[in-house]
């Protein structure tokens, strides 16, 4: 595939060739180059802001990998990103653009809180019920868009975005109404879940919780589903060529709904993960935009389980690391957002550039008769 671009005012023409198979070395190299470039440009920015970039990066390192405490914080951020990211990647593999991760997380969180505050449930059953309930909640919420797309041909991007708003306002209503902590009626928060509903802490000195195993389990299950079950074959088939899939006897509409249900279910699980693992109660902004960041995680991970795992971890580090630079008194807080955005753009751009060979050729004299 060769594409040629003519830039009329320059004496060169640029042709771009797409490389379909990337060597494994280049696959590893592309995010590394992006990271190094990002750090270099970031250094200039910190310098311009009047601080010492070396100190800034020392803080970045300390804040992410410098101590056990900070490293577990990275993992805590990475867990939800990996789980939702995998869910979104599954939907994307079926060419269903699920932008609704955020809403699906919130529906899962609401369901988790609701079940978690039912005091009459037996303690040993509590955590399994919460996880199952939040999965089902996210699954149903996601399926709505799946049904709308396969039955009525509605654009899933619009439907999922709209459903995000519905879920956000439902959550806002819930913590102010039905689920509010009756002992503190002025704060928009639910009451704390009983401690037997918590995801157990893994290390006594840190906040790291059993959600870590949840994330790893999700990645392994996704790998099995996508590459070892007939259902995974169907997901990929309808994503790559729905016509041929239908011709091959696959029920495209039903497969799509199930796929989106699975995708939403994983997002719902993150709702439970945040409630039972981190906050232990429902409050505003519980998801911190994980549903949106996870889209980037999914794309950056090339929609593959291992890729999503790595990308999720990378983004966890980016979020925590940026926060730690912010704590340096001399660095403006807004710079952190600039830094985050820049790394992201660089990673995406370099990833794309690696997929192309670019040739620049000097233009020949024009041979036209006019």
């Amino acid at each position, binding site marked *: 595939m060769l594409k040629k671009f003519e830039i009329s005012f320059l004496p060169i023409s640029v042709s771009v060739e797409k490389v379909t198979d990337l060597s494994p070395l280049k696959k590893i190299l592309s995010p590394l180059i992006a990271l190094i470039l990002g750090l270099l440009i970031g250094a200039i920015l910190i310098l311009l802001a009047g601080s010492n970039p070396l100190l800034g990066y020392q803080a970045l390192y300390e804040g992410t990998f410098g101590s056990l405490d900070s490293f577990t914080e990275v993992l805590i951020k990475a867990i939800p990103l990996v789980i939702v990211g995998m869910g979104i990647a599954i939907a994307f593999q079926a060419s269903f653009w699920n932008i609704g991760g955020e809403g699906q997380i919130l529906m899962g969180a609401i369901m988790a809180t609701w079940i978690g505050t039912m005091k009459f449930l037996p303690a040993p059953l509590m955590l399994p019920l919460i996880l199952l309930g939040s999965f089902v909640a996210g699954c149903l919420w996601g399926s709505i868009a799946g049904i709308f797309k396969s039955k009525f041909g509605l654009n899933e991007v619009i439907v999922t975005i709209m459903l995000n708003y519905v879920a956000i306002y439902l959550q806002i209503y819930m913590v102010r109404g039905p689920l509010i902590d009756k002992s503190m009626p002025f704060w928009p928060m639910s009451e704390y879940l009983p401690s037997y509903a918590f995801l157990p802490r893994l290390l006594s000195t840190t906040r790291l919780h059993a959600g870590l195993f949840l994330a790893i389990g999700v990645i392994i299950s996704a790998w099995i589903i996508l590459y070892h079950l*007939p259902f995974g074959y169907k997901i990929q*088939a309808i994503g790559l*060529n729905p016509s*041929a*899939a239908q*011709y091959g006897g696959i029920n495209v509409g039903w497969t799509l709904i199930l796929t989106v249900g699975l995708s939403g279910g994983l997002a719902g699980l993150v709702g439970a993960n945040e409630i039972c693992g981190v906050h232990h109660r429902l409050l505003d902004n519980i998801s911190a935009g994980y549903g949106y960041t996870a889209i980037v995680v999914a794309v950056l991970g090339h929609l593959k389980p291992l890729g999503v795992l790595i990308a999720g971890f990378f983004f966890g580090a980016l979020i925590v690391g940026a926060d730690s630079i912010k704590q340096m008194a001399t660095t403006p807080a807004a710079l952190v957002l600039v830094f985050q955005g820049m790394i992201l753009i660089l990673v995406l751009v370099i990833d794309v550039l690696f997929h192309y060979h670019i040739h620049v050729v000097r233009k020949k004299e024009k041979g036209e008769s006019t």
Partner: protein
Amino acid sequence: MGKQLDKMLERINKNEVMNTYRKHGTSSMAYLEICEVTKHFPGGVVALDHISLSVEKGEIRAILGENGAGKTTLMNILYGLYQPDKGKMILDGKVLQGHTPQKALNLGIGMVHQNFMLVEAFTVLENILVGLPPPQPLLLTSTRVEKRIRELSRKYNLPVDCQARISDLSVGEQQRVEIVKALYRDAQLIILDEPTAVLTPQEVEVLFKVLKEMAAQGKTILFISHKLKEVCSISDRITVLRAGKVIGTIPTSEATHHKLADMMVGKEVILKLERPTCPSGKIVLKVSELSACKSRGVEVLKGVSFVVREGEILGVAGVSGNGQLELAEVLTGLIPATRGKIILSGKDITGSLPRGRIDAGLAYIPGDRLRWGCIPDFSVANNLVLKSFWKDPFTIHGLLQPQKIVGSAQRLIREFDIRTPSSKVEVKKLSGGNIQKMILAREMSLGPSILLAAQPSRGLDIAATEYIWQRLLQTREEKKGVLLISEDLEEILTLSDRIIVMYEGRIRKEMPNENVDINKLGLLMAGAEIG
């Protein structure tokens, strides 16, 4: 005033340029010269094979050919939508280089596409303004523009309502907007791709009047069609394309339906295959009074009935767009039947899902092999199990068995001589012939009782065509039924035991394949009346 003067000067200059050409001995240069244009498509299809033709100014030139002959591809190249692999085009003395639609517009080439390129939610005026070359009018409600449109529609007798929304217009009116759009851009060469396909006979008559008026005013018109009657009544000269080659150009006054049909479908048979007599057995497929609609609710298949027996190839001949595609899709369950019945091996499958029909023993080689027949981004092995991946032995205890899938793929690759570096290569990297062999291998591996093959050799080279044809004959000898839908008469005549001809969604004629008069067949396909 100044502007007009400039324009006039420009025209005079142009004439001078033309005159210098004439003086330098290039006076034979026609208005449009296409030299040796060649175009390949992915999948090994040669769409255009060294096409050369020249068109004079003010001429209505018909480009006649069956579907897949390369007419539309050629026009898309002329309009800059595709780049030719080889060859050059000269318009009005200018070589078209690095051709794009924008350049084509600036050079005065206008195109009315088969599927109109109009924005449905916009008004007629807005659609005409969209994509105008600079200087663009500032306001979309420009009265100046509206005035010019009115002048044009008076001049060519093309009434349009500038403020009407496209979605409210009939198809004929939409086409008129497309023509006005081309005229507004001062197009000198207007390409019409199958313009009558969507029109009623009355609308066709009006269109032809307009075209003649335009030609009389010095516009050059390329009229693409596969309908003999229309071509004969509108054009000055006719160029016939077949399989990407120019077969010939004749003045319309010398053309007869018979002669054109001959040129279109070709008389000579490239391949001679043995078709041993084969006693046909009991009925495998019985179709009665089958009807179906296209997406827009237009009935395109109107009560078709036929049977296919074991050990028999039934050929369905017809020019594309006469319901054959829908016949195949209804039979395979991709679109629902609105009326009628399909009985496969004694079982009513009229309402079954595609999978039910596959299980009942229906195999299908789709006409559009990249869109329907395979998943180009899947490996050969994965494509080969598209219709059986969930079954034993490819799935055991709910888990896919990659070794079994690859093993079976390797067997099929050997058996069907599929040329691929390995079974793990993506299908999109294979040539068209090998993709078709892969599809055939998959369908035959299911052990079907009937094989439905649509355009099985379209775009394939001779070797691959011969292979596929031999396989179809072999299938017939294995006492299976074959329903062959093809626009290629040669294919139909070489392979079929019986032939049915479809025209406008109905079966026009059924006949045994013995001493068939190819001219008569061509005429039946083109909808001509036979006395």
